[in-house]
């Protein structure tokens, strides 16, 4: 428990926020500051670590310990910090370029190892800081500065990649919904192991409107679904749509039609170990499906940092080598007189 009660302002640094007016990053910053103020941990225990990108300027705006790394290496740096001192609350802030282009290897490995980090991936489907080249999440065929005739590459789905890399926690938020982000961030902090959180973030300058289809005010309730553990997968303006499982696939149905009632709707189980259904949920795309928000997967598993220190404790309990002098004169030695 924190020694003092904080407000979000306590987590604001004295540096002017330099994102473009209207950039989705600012909302995420607010959500993180709000979350940390409410978590009840001492401020000095928070460490915010990033790579390079617009999104990666994040630590400078936080009045916590912060590390602005190099491009793509936020995952490795954060893994090092957390493993060095598991009592810290380590937040990795990264972009679709930082985490999934140059940082892809560290991303899949930190997920695999299950280092107890909170990873916020600000996915604007573009390289913002370098002024608009396509990223590994840019849509197939997207025209950008570096794909003047459209890309010919299939994009990653961050959730799918997370699951492919043995991910135990995946959630999705969206920049306009601060309350949902705060809720997710808190769950992430409480989850032991790496919590991957994808935020659908709008870059107003180089990829404005990337999420317009799912976010436009009039229709978003029909195009998004917020998943909650143990609750049925119901969505829609009138909460009359739901997801069911048919064959080996998900399907959208209308409650009240074709004899479907609320009871037939799938109940979300974020704790299910088997990733197949979670994979289907993270992969849902418009317009066929609603895009899933909320905590989609949250499965307990041993964490790397925990494993390291448990092993150290076990070995130290039974070893004769208690200090360097012991080690130096251990094993085969002889005396010269």
């Amino acid at each position, binding site marked *: 428990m924190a020694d003092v009660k904080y407000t979000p302002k306590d987590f604001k640094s004295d540096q002017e926020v330099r994102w473009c007016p209207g950039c989705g990053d600012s909302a995420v910053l607010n959500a993180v500051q709000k979350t940390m103020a409410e978590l009840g941990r001492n401020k000095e*225990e928070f460490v915010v670590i990033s790579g390079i990108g617009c999104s990666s300027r994040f630590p400078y705006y936080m009045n916590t310990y912060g590390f*602005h790394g*190099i491009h793509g*290496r936020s995952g490795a*740096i954060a893994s*090092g910090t957390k493993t060095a001192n598991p009592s810290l609350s380590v937040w990795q802030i990264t972009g679709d370029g930082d985490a999934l282009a140059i940082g892809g290897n560290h991303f899949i490995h930190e997920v695999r190892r299950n280092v107890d980090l909170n990873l916020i991936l600000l996915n604007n489907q573009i390289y913002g800081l370098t002024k608009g080249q396509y990223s590994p999440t840019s849509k197939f065929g997207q025209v950008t500065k570096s794909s003047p005739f459209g890309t010919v590459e299939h994009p990653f789905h961050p959730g799918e990649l997370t699951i492919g890399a043995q991910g135990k926690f995946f959630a999705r938020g969206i920049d306009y919904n601060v309350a949902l982000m705060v809720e997710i961030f808190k769950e992430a902090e409480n989850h032991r192991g790496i919590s991957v959180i994808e935020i659908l973030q709008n870059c107003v300058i180089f990829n404005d409107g990337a999420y317009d289809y799912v976010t436009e005010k009039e229709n978003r309730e029909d195009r998004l679904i917020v998943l909650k553990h143990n609750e049925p997968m119901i969505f829609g303006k009138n909460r009359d749509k739901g997801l069911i499982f048919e064959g080996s696939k998900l399907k959208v149905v209308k409650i009240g039609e074709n004899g479907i009632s609320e009871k037939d709707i799938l109940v979300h189980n974020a704790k299910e170990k088997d990733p197949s259904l979670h994979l289907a949920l993270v992969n849902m795309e418009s317009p066929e499906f609603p895009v899933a928000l909320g905590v989609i997967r949250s499965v307990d598993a041993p964490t790397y940092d925990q494993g390291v220190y448990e092993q150290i404790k076990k070995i130290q309990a039974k070893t004769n080598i208690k200090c*360097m002098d012991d080690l130096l004169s251990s094993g085969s030695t002889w005396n010269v007189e």
Partner: protein
Amino acid sequence: MENLKKEVVELDEVVIRFSGDSGDGMQLTGTLFSNTSALFGNDVSTFPDYPAEIRAPQGTVGGVSGFQLHFGKKQIFTPGDYADVLVAMNPAAVKANLRWVKQGGTIIVDADSFTDKNLEKAGYSQDPLKDDKLGNYNIVEVPITNLTKQSIEDLGLDNKSVLRCKNMFALGLVYYIFSRPLEHTLNFIETKFGAKDPRVVEANKRVLQAGFNYGDNLQLLRSYLVQPADIPAGKYRSINGNIATAWGLLAAAEKSGLRLFLGSYPITPASEILQEISARKDLGAVCFQAEDEIAGICTAIGASFAGCLAATSTSGPGLSLKAEAIGLAAITELPLVIVNVQRGGPSTGLPTKTEQSDLLQALYGRHGECPVPVIAASTPSDCFYYAYEAGRIAVEHMTPVILLTDGFLANGSEPWKITKMSELPEIKPPFAQKDKPYLPYLRNAETMVREWAVPGTPGLEHRVGGLEKMAVTGTVSYVPENHQVMTFEREEKVKRIVAKVPDLKVFGNQNGGKLLVIGWGSTYGYIITAVKEMQDEGHDIAMLHFNYINPLPKNTAEILKLYKKLVVCELNLGQFANYLRIKHQQFNYLQYNKVQGQPFTVLELKEHFYKLLKEE
């Protein structure tokens, strides 16, 4: 009877090379002989010579595994150029090693292995024992395989297990020749195999004794004695460069009160450092085997930020990959030790061989103006001290430090008088004080070092990173003049480390002379041996050896100016010579270079020095 037959010749020093198939146990044999000799009081230096493949096909030259050792009653600095005695367990071992045997040296072969099939595998069209190619050597043919079998046929061991004892026969024989006691080895056999199978213990013991007895009975073999060396009293152990490096880092962590964190990725010949630290859970060390070298160093940087003594270990290709992140450690001014065990380059090059060709990369291999202290170890055991020094400089000066060793030091071993922790210098981390406002880039006026504020400490929250920062306050700054100031301050901080770098000492005439031989790092043993021998012969020759490369010791120029000729000897094309041209342009540097993936030989060095002395 025995005593009557024995003719014992005293020698000052001997070089032995054990060689055989990868499966023949030559590394163990060599190690046991070394340890026995060390126990006996000799000075010893050893070097294993592995094949590049894990298990090249049996009986081929590619599959030969060797272990060379050099012991003497005087100080021994190298594993020796050429062997007095070669033990060869098969024809391929003869083929592979003949060039390393002294003219007139002794070659002990397992005669049973000289079958047509083995000769063919070794690439011999004729049995070398039968033609006159080996005429210059003293060939001792021993039916090792059969004698081994005979001496334990009653134990009922399977054939494979029987053959595994062959190396003990060879060892016993060599023990006889060099008048060594068997106790150490017998004890070793007991502990090693005792738990497994008492028959194996018995077999190994018997075969060892049989080898010894064979020597005793064989009229052909003289026996030699190498008296104990005059070695400082104390407790000793044998140590190789990689273990010494790992332990040096562990020692620096303990002394500074920090946890050791190693972020690393396996690579020959550096992997053993990672392996040793991963085994040191007893001392609380954290070893993070990363997904690649970049993650290795970046996890270490993250750990350093979190307050550990952080290190990363690698070899050439890995150092190349770490270049960008070293820059991050440099600009954030966080402590970090980068151990680079050099090997033959460029690219994958000769991965199991030794070379000194990463020096300029260590000094300049990063974008931007990015000064980093560089130090180099010169013997397997002093890897301990220089790893410790690297840790000390990193922590006390808040900087990444590159420690250079190489394949020769990494795998080579020598007896080492065990250091007591109390004998090592203090290491005091420059922690920021909790109660004062923290300015991340406020510098100590004398050392230019900034203070270290570790996450978890209340009130010292701050941000660091790879963008240029405003002096003192540490906020992001694009101000042109500030960049110049910070660039100079980073440079100056590294320069000022010189205050704690010990002065150089010439080996030889301190007041100058005709020829000064300059070396750095692992060539120490070969160069000092060559120079010493020539001094003993009465030549005007001296030696200057560098362990601190950046910054160079204060008195470097003072010394260089005293000698008429300077020759820089390196296992590369002249990188340290070039560096001296930058730092001390006023002197003329001759070069002696070798790029063969092999250490110097004392012989070739001396030949070159004779020439230089004559030329003048």
